[in-house]
Protein backbone atom coordinates (compact mmCIF):
# COMPACT_ATOMS: atom_id res chain seq x y z
CA UNK A 1 0.00 0.00 0.00
CA UNK A 2 1.44 3.34 -1.03
CA UNK A 3 1.41 6.62 0.87
CA UNK A 4 -0.35 8.63 -1.78
CA UNK A 5 -4.07 8.90 -2.36
CA UNK A 6 -4.16 6.27 -5.13
CA UNK A 7 -3.30 2.66 -4.33
CA UNK A 8 -0.85 0.54 -6.28
CA UNK A 9 0.08 -3.11 -6.08
CA UNK A 10 1.97 -5.75 -7.98
CA UNK A 11 -0.12 -8.05 -10.10
CA UNK A 12 0.98 -11.37 -11.58
CA UNK A 13 -0.57 -13.20 -14.49
CA UNK A 14 0.75 -16.70 -14.27
CA UNK A 15 -0.42 -19.94 -15.85
CA UNK A 16 1.31 -23.18 -16.88
CA UNK A 17 -0.36 -23.54 -20.29
CA UNK A 18 -0.23 -27.02 -21.73
CA UNK A 19 -0.94 -27.13 -25.44
CA UNK A 20 -2.01 -30.10 -27.45
CA UNK A 21 -0.05 -29.87 -30.68
CA UNK A 22 -1.77 -32.07 -33.24
CA UNK A 23 -0.10 -34.24 -35.87
CA UNK A 24 2.16 -31.83 -37.75
CA UNK A 25 3.61 -29.77 -34.90
CA UNK A 26 3.74 -33.01 -32.93
CA UNK A 27 5.83 -34.71 -35.61
CA UNK A 28 8.21 -31.75 -35.73
CA UNK A 29 8.63 -31.71 -31.95
CA UNK A 30 9.06 -35.48 -31.88
CA UNK A 31 11.70 -35.06 -34.58
CA UNK A 32 13.56 -32.49 -32.50
CA UNK A 33 13.53 -34.85 -29.58
CA UNK A 34 15.04 -37.44 -31.88
CA UNK A 35 17.66 -34.99 -33.09
CA UNK A 36 16.29 -34.16 -36.50
CA UNK A 37 14.52 -31.25 -38.13
CA UNK A 38 11.41 -31.85 -40.22
CA UNK A 39 9.63 -29.66 -42.68
CA UNK A 40 6.31 -30.05 -44.47
CA UNK A 41 5.79 -30.02 -48.19
CA UNK A 42 3.68 -27.03 -49.10
CA UNK A 43 2.19 -25.55 -52.24
CA UNK A 44 4.43 -26.05 -55.25
CA UNK A 45 6.68 -28.47 -53.38
CA UNK A 46 8.40 -25.85 -51.24
CA UNK A 47 9.32 -27.19 -47.80
CA UNK A 48 7.95 -25.26 -44.84
CA UNK A 49 10.13 -25.13 -41.73
CA UNK A 50 9.00 -25.27 -39.04
CA UNK A 51 6.01 -27.11 -40.43
CA UNK A 52 2.42 -26.06 -39.90
CA UNK A 53 -0.72 -27.98 -40.86
CA UNK A 54 -1.21 -25.45 -43.63
CA UNK A 55 0.80 -23.68 -46.30
CA UNK A 56 1.74 -20.28 -44.82
CA UNK A 57 0.57 -18.42 -47.92
CA UNK A 58 -2.31 -20.39 -49.47
CA UNK A 59 -3.71 -22.07 -46.36
CA UNK A 60 -3.91 -25.41 -48.15
CA UNK A 61 -3.14 -28.62 -46.30
CA UNK A 62 0.50 -29.58 -46.37
CA UNK A 63 1.82 -32.86 -47.69
CA UNK A 64 4.40 -35.26 -46.34
CA UNK A 65 7.06 -34.38 -43.82
CA UNK A 66 10.69 -34.45 -44.90
CA UNK A 67 13.93 -33.95 -43.06
CA UNK A 68 15.85 -30.71 -43.65
CA UNK A 69 19.10 -29.13 -42.50
CA UNK A 70 20.55 -29.51 -40.02
CA UNK A 71 22.69 -26.61 -41.25
CA UNK A 72 21.45 -23.48 -42.91
CA UNK A 73 22.04 -19.87 -43.82
CA UNK A 74 21.30 -16.75 -41.77
CA UNK A 75 18.93 -14.56 -43.77
CA UNK A 76 18.66 -11.74 -41.26
CA UNK A 77 19.50 -11.29 -37.62
CA UNK A 78 19.32 -8.94 -34.68
CA UNK A 79 21.95 -8.69 -32.00
CA UNK A 80 20.73 -8.85 -28.40
CA UNK A 81 23.53 -7.43 -26.29
CA UNK A 82 21.52 -7.48 -23.09
CA UNK A 83 19.37 -10.62 -22.89
CA UNK A 84 16.01 -10.34 -21.14
CA UNK A 85 14.97 -12.70 -18.37
CA UNK A 86 12.98 -15.06 -20.63
CA UNK A 87 15.43 -15.15 -23.53
CA UNK A 88 16.84 -18.57 -24.39
CA UNK A 89 20.43 -17.54 -23.67
CA UNK A 90 21.77 -15.52 -20.76
CA UNK A 91 24.69 -13.99 -22.64
CA UNK A 92 24.69 -11.82 -25.80
CA UNK A 93 23.24 -13.64 -28.81
CA UNK A 94 21.36 -13.14 -32.06
CA UNK A 95 17.79 -13.80 -33.00
CA UNK A 96 17.96 -14.95 -36.61
CA UNK A 97 15.86 -16.15 -39.47
CA UNK A 98 17.66 -19.24 -40.70
CA UNK A 99 16.97 -20.97 -43.99
CA UNK A 100 17.85 -24.59 -43.39
CA UNK A 101 19.26 -26.64 -46.23
CA UNK A 102 16.36 -27.96 -48.25
CA UNK A 103 13.81 -25.53 -46.78
CA UNK A 104 11.70 -23.05 -48.70
CA UNK A 105 11.04 -20.83 -45.70
CA UNK A 106 13.26 -19.69 -42.89
CA UNK A 107 12.90 -20.40 -39.22
CA UNK A 108 13.30 -18.09 -36.26
CA UNK A 109 15.82 -19.25 -33.69
CA UNK A 110 18.79 -17.99 -31.76
CA UNK A 111 22.45 -17.98 -32.77
CA UNK A 112 25.15 -18.22 -30.14
CA UNK A 113 27.96 -16.44 -31.95
CA UNK A 114 29.83 -14.80 -29.08
CA UNK A 115 30.04 -11.35 -30.64
CA UNK A 116 28.21 -9.57 -33.44
CA UNK A 117 31.43 -9.43 -35.45
CA UNK A 118 31.31 -13.22 -35.66
CA UNK A 119 27.98 -13.19 -37.47
CA UNK A 120 26.84 -11.85 -40.82
CA UNK A 121 23.91 -12.18 -43.13
CA UNK A 122 24.55 -15.21 -45.30
CA UNK A 123 26.64 -16.95 -42.64
CA UNK A 124 26.22 -20.70 -42.35
CA UNK A 125 25.06 -22.04 -39.01
CA UNK A 126 24.40 -25.46 -37.54
CA UNK A 127 22.33 -26.52 -34.54
CA UNK A 128 23.83 -27.15 -31.15
CA UNK A 129 21.54 -29.77 -29.69
CA UNK A 130 20.71 -30.35 -26.10
CA UNK A 131 21.77 -33.79 -24.96
CA UNK A 132 19.41 -36.57 -25.93
CA UNK A 133 18.14 -37.01 -22.40
CA UNK A 134 17.40 -33.29 -22.04
CA UNK A 135 15.35 -33.11 -25.21
CA UNK A 136 11.62 -33.11 -24.60
CA UNK A 137 10.04 -32.06 -27.89
CA UNK A 138 10.43 -28.27 -27.79
CA UNK A 139 12.00 -25.68 -30.13
CA UNK A 140 14.71 -25.28 -27.53
CA UNK A 141 15.79 -28.88 -27.91
CA UNK A 142 18.07 -27.01 -30.25
CA UNK A 143 19.87 -24.96 -27.62
CA UNK A 144 21.03 -22.53 -30.27
CA UNK A 145 22.51 -22.44 -33.72
CA UNK A 146 26.21 -21.70 -33.95
CA UNK A 147 28.45 -20.52 -36.79
CA UNK A 148 29.41 -23.56 -38.83
CA UNK A 149 33.14 -23.02 -38.41
CA UNK A 150 32.63 -23.03 -34.66
CA UNK A 151 30.73 -26.29 -34.71
CA UNK A 152 32.34 -29.24 -33.00
Amino acid sequence: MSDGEVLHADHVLDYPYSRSVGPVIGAFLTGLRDGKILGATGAGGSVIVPPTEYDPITGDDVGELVEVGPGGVVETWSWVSEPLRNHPLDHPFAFALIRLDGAGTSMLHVVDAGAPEALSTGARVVPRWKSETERVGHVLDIEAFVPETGAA
Partner: protein
Amino acid sequence: MSPAASRRPVAIASFAQSQNVRRDQERNEVEGLMPVIAEVFANIGITKNDIDFICSGSTDYLIGGPFSFVAALDAVGVWPPRSESHVEMDGAFALYEAWVRLQEGDIDAALVYSFGRSSLGDLNEILALQLDPYYLAPLWPDPVSVAALQARALIDSGRATESDLAGVAARNRKSALSNPKAQVAYDRSVDELLSEEYAVAPLRKHALPPITDGAAAIVLAAGDKAQQWTDHPAWITGIDHRIETHALGARDLTRSPSTTKAAEMAGVGDGPVDVAELHAPYAHQELILAEAMGLGDGVSINPSGGALAANPLMSAGLIRIGEAAARISSGSAHRAVAHATSGPCLQQNLVCVLEGE
Protein backbone atom coordinates in the same frame (compact mmCIF):
# COMPACT_ATOMS: atom_id res chain seq x y z
CA MET B 1 -12.16 3.43 -60.76
CA SER B 2 -11.77 3.58 -57.03
CA PRO B 3 -13.60 0.70 -55.38
CA ALA B 4 -14.62 3.25 -52.75
CA ALA B 5 -16.47 5.46 -55.24
CA SER B 6 -19.93 4.10 -54.52
CA ARG B 7 -19.70 4.34 -50.74
CA ARG B 8 -21.90 6.46 -48.51
CA PRO B 9 -19.98 9.60 -47.47
CA VAL B 10 -18.78 9.26 -43.88
CA ALA B 11 -16.56 11.82 -42.17
CA ILE B 12 -14.46 12.18 -39.07
CA ALA B 13 -16.43 14.86 -37.28
CA SER B 14 -14.39 15.01 -34.09
CA PHE B 15 -11.15 13.66 -32.65
CA ALA B 16 -9.69 13.74 -29.16
CA GLN B 17 -6.73 12.13 -27.49
CA SER B 18 -5.30 12.10 -24.00
CA GLN B 19 -1.92 13.52 -23.19
CA ASN B 20 0.52 10.79 -24.15
CA VAL B 21 2.66 9.96 -21.14
CA ARG B 22 5.21 7.35 -20.10
CA ARG B 23 3.11 6.32 -17.13
CA ASP B 24 -0.36 7.30 -15.96
CA GLN B 25 0.00 6.34 -12.31
CA GLU B 26 -3.29 7.50 -10.95
CA ARG B 27 -6.20 6.71 -13.19
CA ASN B 28 -7.73 3.41 -14.17
CA GLU B 29 -8.97 2.79 -17.73
CA VAL B 30 -12.37 4.37 -17.13
CA GLU B 31 -10.88 7.45 -15.52
CA GLY B 32 -8.40 7.84 -18.35
CA LEU B 33 -11.08 7.53 -21.01
CA MET B 34 -13.81 9.75 -19.56
CA PRO B 35 -12.19 13.12 -20.32
CA VAL B 36 -11.29 11.97 -23.85
CA ILE B 37 -14.86 10.93 -24.60
CA ALA B 38 -16.21 14.12 -23.01
CA GLU B 39 -13.89 16.13 -25.24
CA VAL B 40 -14.72 14.30 -28.44
CA PHE B 41 -18.40 15.10 -27.86
CA ALA B 42 -17.82 18.66 -26.63
CA ASN B 43 -15.73 19.52 -29.72
CA ILE B 44 -18.88 19.40 -31.81
CA GLY B 45 -21.48 20.05 -29.14
CA ILE B 46 -23.10 16.63 -29.07
CA THR B 47 -23.82 14.09 -26.32
CA LYS B 48 -23.82 10.30 -26.12
CA ASN B 49 -27.51 10.44 -27.02
CA ASP B 50 -26.56 11.56 -30.53
CA ILE B 51 -24.58 8.36 -31.08
CA ASP B 52 -26.14 5.33 -32.82
CA PHE B 53 -23.25 2.86 -32.67
CA ILE B 54 -20.19 2.44 -30.46
CA CYS B 55 -17.06 0.44 -31.22
CA SER B 56 -13.87 0.22 -29.18
CA GLY B 57 -10.42 -1.34 -29.52
CA SER B 58 -8.21 -2.65 -26.72
CA THR B 59 -6.39 -5.74 -25.50
CA ASP B 60 -6.70 -7.52 -22.18
CA TYR B 61 -2.98 -8.24 -22.09
CA LEU B 62 -2.09 -4.61 -21.38
CA ILE B 63 -3.82 -4.65 -17.99
CA GLY B 64 -3.31 -8.36 -17.41
CA GLY B 65 -6.95 -9.24 -16.81
CA PRO B 66 -9.84 -10.49 -18.92
CA PHE B 67 -12.71 -8.30 -20.15
CA SER B 68 -10.96 -4.94 -19.70
CA PHE B 69 -13.26 -3.47 -22.36
CA VAL B 70 -16.31 -4.26 -20.23
CA ALA B 71 -15.36 -1.88 -17.44
CA ALA B 72 -14.16 0.72 -19.96
CA LEU B 73 -17.68 0.95 -21.34
CA ASP B 74 -18.60 2.67 -18.07
CA ALA B 75 -16.73 5.71 -19.39
CA VAL B 76 -19.44 6.17 -22.00
CA GLY B 77 -22.54 5.47 -19.94
CA VAL B 78 -24.40 3.12 -22.30
CA TRP B 79 -27.82 3.69 -20.83
CA PRO B 80 -30.37 3.30 -22.32
CA PRO B 81 -28.75 0.29 -24.05
CA ARG B 82 -26.81 0.91 -27.26
CA SER B 83 -25.66 -1.00 -30.26
CA GLU B 84 -22.05 -1.60 -29.29
CA SER B 85 -19.12 -3.77 -30.31
CA HIS B 86 -15.47 -4.30 -29.44
CA VAL B 87 -12.42 -5.47 -31.33
CA GLU B 88 -9.31 -6.91 -29.73
CA MET B 89 -7.37 -4.73 -32.16
CA ASP B 90 -6.12 -1.17 -32.51
CA GLY B 91 -8.88 1.44 -32.44
CA ALA B 92 -8.28 2.06 -36.15
CA PHE B 93 -9.93 -1.28 -36.81
CA ALA B 94 -12.80 -0.34 -34.50
CA LEU B 95 -13.18 2.71 -36.73
CA TYR B 96 -13.29 0.42 -39.74
CA GLU B 97 -16.12 -1.61 -38.20
CA ALA B 98 -18.02 1.60 -37.44
CA TRP B 99 -17.45 2.89 -40.97
CA VAL B 100 -18.83 -0.36 -42.39
CA ARG B 101 -21.82 -0.12 -40.08
CA LEU B 102 -22.53 3.43 -41.26
CA GLN B 103 -22.58 2.33 -44.90
CA GLU B 104 -26.05 0.84 -44.67
CA GLY B 105 -27.85 4.12 -44.15
CA ASP B 106 -29.99 3.14 -41.17
CA ILE B 107 -27.76 4.95 -38.68
CA ASP B 108 -25.78 8.18 -38.94
CA ALA B 109 -23.24 8.51 -36.14
CA ALA B 110 -20.72 6.35 -34.34
CA LEU B 111 -18.34 6.75 -31.43
CA VAL B 112 -15.00 4.97 -31.73
CA TYR B 113 -12.48 4.81 -28.91
CA SER B 114 -9.43 2.93 -27.80
CA PHE B 115 -7.37 2.81 -24.67
CA GLY B 116 -4.56 1.06 -22.91
CA ARG B 117 -1.69 1.67 -20.61
CA SER B 118 1.47 0.20 -22.07
CA SER B 119 3.31 0.96 -18.82
CA LEU B 120 1.58 -1.59 -16.60
CA GLY B 121 3.46 -4.66 -17.76
CA ASP B 122 6.62 -5.45 -19.70
CA LEU B 123 5.89 -5.05 -23.41
CA ASN B 124 8.97 -7.08 -24.27
CA GLU B 125 7.27 -10.09 -22.75
CA ILE B 126 3.63 -9.24 -23.48
CA LEU B 127 4.14 -8.73 -27.22
CA ALA B 128 6.03 -12.01 -27.51
CA LEU B 129 2.64 -13.60 -26.85
CA GLN B 130 1.41 -12.23 -30.20
CA LEU B 131 3.67 -14.76 -31.89
CA ASP B 132 2.96 -18.38 -32.88
CA PRO B 133 2.35 -20.06 -29.50
CA TYR B 134 4.13 -23.30 -30.46
CA TYR B 135 7.25 -22.22 -32.33
CA LEU B 136 7.89 -18.56 -31.61
CA ALA B 137 6.49 -17.49 -28.24
CA PRO B 138 8.50 -20.20 -26.41
CA LEU B 139 11.65 -18.36 -27.56
CA TRP B 140 10.27 -15.09 -26.07
CA PRO B 141 11.39 -12.90 -28.96
CA ASP B 142 10.89 -9.32 -27.78
CA PRO B 143 9.32 -6.85 -30.23
CA VAL B 144 12.53 -4.84 -30.63
CA SER B 145 14.52 -7.90 -31.64
CA VAL B 146 11.80 -8.92 -34.08
CA ALA B 147 11.68 -5.44 -35.62
CA ALA B 148 15.47 -5.45 -35.83
CA LEU B 149 15.30 -8.55 -38.06
CA GLN B 150 13.26 -6.48 -40.48
CA ALA B 151 15.56 -3.46 -40.19
CA ARG B 152 18.63 -5.52 -41.02
CA ALA B 153 16.89 -7.14 -43.96
CA LEU B 154 16.05 -3.67 -45.28
CA ILE B 155 19.59 -2.40 -44.80
CA ASP B 156 21.01 -5.55 -46.39
CA SER B 157 18.74 -4.99 -49.38
CA GLY B 158 20.53 -1.71 -50.05
CA ARG B 159 17.32 0.31 -49.98
CA ALA B 160 18.09 2.05 -46.66
CA THR B 161 21.03 2.85 -44.43
CA GLU B 162 21.35 3.30 -40.70
CA SER B 163 21.63 6.99 -41.47
CA ASP B 164 18.24 6.89 -43.23
CA LEU B 165 16.71 5.37 -40.09
CA ALA B 166 18.22 8.15 -37.97
CA GLY B 167 16.87 10.65 -40.47
CA VAL B 168 13.35 9.31 -40.00
CA ALA B 169 13.71 9.46 -36.23
CA ALA B 170 15.14 13.00 -36.30
CA ARG B 171 12.34 14.30 -38.50
CA ASN B 172 9.55 12.66 -36.50
CA ARG B 173 10.86 13.86 -33.14
CA LYS B 174 11.39 17.36 -34.52
CA SER B 175 7.83 17.45 -35.86
CA ALA B 176 6.67 16.30 -32.44
CA LEU B 177 7.95 19.57 -30.96
CA SER B 178 4.83 21.20 -32.37
CA ASN B 179 2.52 18.43 -31.11
CA PRO B 180 1.40 19.30 -27.57
CA LYS B 181 0.22 15.70 -26.98
CA ALA B 182 3.59 14.16 -27.90
CA GLN B 183 5.66 12.26 -25.39
CA VAL B 184 9.09 12.33 -27.07
CA ALA B 185 10.15 15.41 -29.01
CA TYR B 186 13.57 16.84 -29.74
CA ASP B 187 15.73 18.56 -32.31
CA ARG B 188 18.83 16.47 -32.84
CA SER B 189 21.02 15.90 -35.83
CA VAL B 190 21.35 12.62 -37.66
CA ASP B 191 25.00 12.44 -36.64
CA GLU B 192 24.10 12.87 -33.02
CA LEU B 193 21.53 10.08 -33.25
CA LEU B 194 23.99 7.79 -35.00
CA SER B 195 26.35 8.14 -32.05
CA GLU B 196 23.84 6.36 -29.81
CA GLU B 197 24.47 2.78 -28.75
CA TYR B 198 22.49 -0.01 -30.37
CA ALA B 199 19.40 -1.10 -28.48
CA VAL B 200 19.18 -4.29 -30.53
CA ALA B 201 21.44 -3.99 -33.55
CA PRO B 202 20.87 -2.65 -36.11
CA LEU B 203 18.29 -0.57 -34.23
CA ARG B 204 19.54 2.23 -32.04
CA LYS B 205 17.45 3.76 -29.31
CA HIS B 206 16.20 6.58 -31.56
CA ALA B 207 14.62 4.09 -33.96
CA LEU B 208 12.39 2.66 -31.23
CA PRO B 209 8.97 3.90 -30.12
CA PRO B 210 8.47 5.14 -26.58
CA ILE B 211 6.29 3.23 -24.10
CA THR B 212 3.12 5.25 -23.83
CA ASP B 213 -0.10 5.36 -21.83
CA GLY B 214 -2.94 7.00 -23.67
CA ALA B 215 -6.43 6.90 -25.12
CA ALA B 216 -8.18 8.34 -28.15
CA ALA B 217 -11.69 8.81 -29.51
CA ILE B 218 -13.28 9.75 -32.81
CA VAL B 219 -16.85 10.56 -33.79
CA LEU B 220 -17.82 9.37 -37.26
CA ALA B 221 -20.82 10.96 -38.92
CA ALA B 222 -22.48 10.27 -42.24
CA GLY B 223 -23.65 12.75 -44.84
CA ASP B 224 -25.80 15.61 -43.58
CA LYS B 225 -25.05 14.85 -39.98
CA ALA B 226 -21.34 15.45 -40.56
CA GLN B 227 -22.13 18.77 -42.24
CA GLN B 228 -24.42 19.71 -39.40
CA TRP B 229 -21.91 18.91 -36.67
CA THR B 230 -18.79 20.45 -38.12
CA ASP B 231 -17.80 23.05 -40.68
CA HIS B 232 -14.71 21.02 -41.50
CA PRO B 233 -15.48 17.32 -41.82
CA ALA B 234 -12.67 15.04 -42.98
CA TRP B 235 -14.37 12.69 -45.42
CA ILE B 236 -13.26 9.09 -45.63
CA THR B 237 -12.97 8.49 -49.37
CA GLY B 238 -11.42 5.07 -49.02
CA ILE B 239 -10.48 2.61 -46.30
CA ASP B 240 -9.19 -0.96 -46.45
CA HIS B 241 -7.01 -3.34 -44.49
CA ARG B 242 -5.06 -6.49 -45.36
CA ILE B 243 -3.04 -9.10 -43.47
CA GLU B 244 0.03 -11.12 -44.38
CA THR B 245 1.16 -14.51 -43.25
CA HIS B 246 2.35 -14.82 -39.70
CA ALA B 247 5.36 -16.85 -40.71
CA LEU B 248 8.18 -14.27 -40.74
CA GLY B 249 10.33 -16.73 -42.64
CA ALA B 250 7.82 -16.92 -45.49
CA ARG B 251 7.70 -13.15 -46.00
CA ASP B 252 9.94 -10.59 -47.70
CA LEU B 253 10.29 -8.43 -44.63
CA THR B 254 11.58 -5.49 -46.65
CA ARG B 255 8.25 -5.06 -48.45
CA SER B 256 4.71 -4.56 -47.28
CA PRO B 257 2.41 -6.04 -49.93
CA SER B 258 -0.55 -5.84 -47.54
CA THR B 259 -0.05 -2.07 -47.30
CA THR B 260 0.25 -1.81 -51.07
CA LYS B 261 -2.98 -3.73 -51.53
CA ALA B 262 -4.87 -1.77 -48.86
CA ALA B 263 -3.62 1.51 -50.33
CA GLU B 264 -4.75 0.46 -53.77
CA MET B 265 -8.20 -0.53 -52.49
CA ALA B 266 -8.47 2.74 -50.54
CA GLY B 267 -7.54 4.73 -53.63
CA VAL B 268 -4.36 6.36 -52.32
CA GLY B 269 -3.05 6.78 -55.85
CA ASP B 270 -6.21 8.41 -57.19
CA GLY B 271 -5.00 11.89 -56.32
CA PRO B 272 -2.15 13.87 -54.82
CA VAL B 273 -1.41 13.22 -51.14
CA ASP B 274 -0.53 16.21 -48.97
CA VAL B 275 -0.04 14.51 -45.64
CA ALA B 276 0.47 10.94 -44.49
CA GLU B 277 0.25 9.76 -40.90
CA LEU B 278 1.94 6.37 -40.86
CA HIS B 279 1.82 4.02 -37.90
CA ALA B 280 5.48 3.04 -37.98
CA PRO B 281 6.59 2.18 -34.46
CA TYR B 282 10.13 1.53 -35.68
CA ALA B 283 11.92 4.08 -37.86
CA HIS B 284 12.72 1.71 -40.71
CA GLN B 285 9.02 0.78 -41.00
CA GLU B 286 8.14 4.29 -42.17
CA LEU B 287 10.45 3.78 -45.15
CA ILE B 288 8.86 0.43 -46.01
CA LEU B 289 5.36 1.86 -45.70
CA ALA B 290 6.03 5.00 -47.74
CA GLU B 291 7.48 2.86 -50.51
CA ALA B 292 4.60 0.39 -50.33
CA MET B 293 2.09 3.20 -50.77
CA GLY B 294 4.10 4.99 -53.42
CA LEU B 295 4.27 8.22 -51.42
CA GLY B 296 6.50 10.70 -53.18
CA ASP B 297 8.89 13.33 -51.86
CA GLY B 298 6.19 15.97 -51.75
CA VAL B 299 4.22 14.20 -49.05
CA SER B 300 4.54 15.50 -45.51
CA ILE B 301 4.96 12.35 -43.46
CA ASN B 302 3.97 12.28 -39.80
CA PRO B 303 3.64 15.97 -39.00
CA SER B 304 2.44 14.81 -35.57
CA GLY B 305 5.69 12.96 -34.92
CA GLY B 306 4.02 9.61 -35.48
CA ALA B 307 4.39 6.57 -33.29
CA LEU B 308 8.02 7.55 -32.62
CA ALA B 309 6.67 10.52 -30.66
CA ALA B 310 3.99 8.58 -28.79
CA ASN B 311 2.98 4.95 -29.13
CA PRO B 312 0.01 4.14 -26.90
CA LEU B 313 -0.68 0.54 -27.86
CA MET B 314 -4.15 -0.05 -29.30
CA SER B 315 -4.61 3.72 -29.83
CA ALA B 316 -1.58 4.68 -31.91
CA GLY B 317 -3.30 3.64 -35.16
CA LEU B 318 -6.55 5.42 -34.36
CA ILE B 319 -4.53 8.53 -33.47
CA ARG B 320 -2.94 8.46 -36.95
CA ILE B 321 -6.42 8.74 -38.43
CA GLY B 322 -7.32 11.50 -36.00
CA GLU B 323 -4.13 13.42 -36.71
CA ALA B 324 -4.62 13.14 -40.46
CA ALA B 325 -8.22 14.31 -40.09
CA ALA B 326 -7.05 17.25 -38.00
CA ARG B 327 -4.83 18.39 -40.89
CA ILE B 328 -7.84 18.25 -43.20
CA SER B 329 -10.09 20.07 -40.76
CA SER B 330 -7.54 22.81 -40.17
CA GLY B 331 -7.20 23.31 -43.92
CA SER B 332 -3.47 22.58 -43.91
CA ALA B 333 -4.08 19.53 -46.12
CA HIS B 334 -6.68 18.76 -48.71
CA ARG B 335 -6.01 15.06 -49.07
CA ALA B 336 -4.40 12.88 -46.42
CA VAL B 337 -3.54 9.25 -45.87
CA ALA B 338 -3.65 7.55 -42.46
CA HIS B 339 -2.29 4.12 -41.67
CA ALA B 340 -2.42 1.66 -38.78
CA THR B 341 -0.49 -1.54 -38.24
CA SER B 342 -0.68 -4.62 -36.06
CA GLY B 343 1.42 -7.69 -35.51
CA PRO B 344 5.13 -8.39 -35.90
CA CYS B 345 7.02 -6.61 -38.71
CA LEU B 346 3.93 -4.84 -40.12
CA GLN B 347 1.94 -8.07 -40.50
CA GLN B 348 -1.42 -6.32 -40.77
CA ASN B 349 -2.07 -2.89 -42.23
CA LEU B 350 -4.99 -0.51 -42.58
CA VAL B 351 -5.02 2.46 -44.96
CA CYS B 352 -7.52 5.29 -44.86
CA VAL B 353 -7.79 8.20 -47.31
CA LEU B 354 -9.28 11.45 -46.05
CA GLU B 355 -10.33 14.52 -48.00
CA GLY B 356 -11.73 17.96 -47.25
CA GLU B 357 -14.73 19.52 -48.93
